[in-house]
């Protein structure tokens, strides 16, 4: 037979259970509240996307109808654009050497030494090398002076006298230049 009964022990257990119950209730309320709000937001988003999708479908149909009406032209223009852009791309890799050769001659023309051009090399980046041969030293100096003129140098991105050679017995003075010509419209 028990001598004493602890009347508070049962009560303490009940209090703890009630405390957890309160937490649980509060949590479920909040979850429900956020759930409802989130659900409403999702519904809104869903309907917005549905409407947007239907607009996109209309747009797609319109474009499709337009393209279908111009079906033949569409094939032709795609073919044209493709080949034309290739043509331009390939032409861009062309050195257009003769055009630059004529350009160089026009640059040299005021010096009267056009006929002294011995060789001419150019690539598609307008990197150029050329040589001039003249029969006298004075003539060679005059040409060098000419190439130092501002108007002449303006035609080049860079220009250097690579060599100045004298051929014995033949009285030939050869000047070799390297540089880069400025781009011209071909």
């Amino acid at each position, binding site marked *: 037979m028990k001598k004493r009964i602890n009347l508070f022990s049962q009560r303490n257990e009940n209090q703890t259970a009630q405390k957890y119950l309160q937490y649980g209730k509060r949590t479920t309320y909040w979850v429900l509240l956020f759930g409802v709000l989130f659900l409403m937001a999702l519904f809104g988003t869903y309907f917005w996307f549905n409407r947007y999708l239907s607009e996109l479908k209309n747009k797609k149909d319109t*474009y499709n109808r337009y393209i279908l009406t111009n079906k033949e032209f569409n094939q032709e223009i795609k073919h044209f*654009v493709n080949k034309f852009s*290739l043509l331009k791309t390939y032409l861009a890799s062309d050195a257009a*050497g*003769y055009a630059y*050769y004529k350009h160089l001659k026009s640059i040299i023309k005021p010096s009267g030494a056009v006929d002294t051009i011995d060789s001419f090399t150019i690539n598609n980046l307008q990197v150029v090398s050329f040589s001039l041969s003249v029969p006298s030293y004075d003539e060679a100096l005059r040409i060098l002076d000419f190439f130092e003129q501002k108007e002449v140098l303006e035609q080049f991105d860079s220009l250097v006298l690579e060599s100045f050679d004298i051929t014995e017995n033949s009285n030939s003075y050869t000047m070799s230049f390297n540089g880069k010509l400025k781009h011209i419209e071909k």
Partner: protein
Amino acid sequence: MVPINKIKALFNKRYLSVGLFIGLDIVFLVFVSYLGYKVYGIYQETRSFEQEIDQLKTTSLLIKNNKNLLQDNISSYNDILDALIPDGETYFQVISALEQLEARNGVRINSYSINLSETTEEKMSLSLTISGPQNTIESLLDNYHYSSGRLITNEEITYSMGNTETISFAINVFHSSSDQPNPESDVAEIIIANEDIEFIQSIQEKL
């Protein structure tokens, strides 16, 4: 065995309301997840539609921007472009182009060889040895781009004035299938201008 009291306690008003809310929460969460999944699906669908529409818009703009200028003569322009850059390449096409190059410029092609290192899938690089008087060689250097009936380009030229009877000349001829769009071109941006048409017409005169 579970005591009856405990079972009764489970159905106690308080427990029941919490249980109900938990149930509702679960239903809500399941529904929210389902709806989220649906929204994601519809979002993906719109993205895919947007991409399709972008392509269609590009095509439509290409038609719209160029129709007035090109509609009447586009077939003949395409014929010119196909002649310059054919869809395929054969040995006989190249020989025929070289013969035309000779005939049109009055030079003689003594020999030719293929530069394998420079040749690619769409470009055939050839090294030509050409002979002829200076004026015909200069005519060739001036007109090689289209006078063979094909597009010919040259990436580097060396011209020696003292020895103009014979020159070495490296050329490129091209072919490309119409099904392979040029990766360097942005179709949406392309508006063919009057100058482009004049350019094609000027090529036509040189072919």
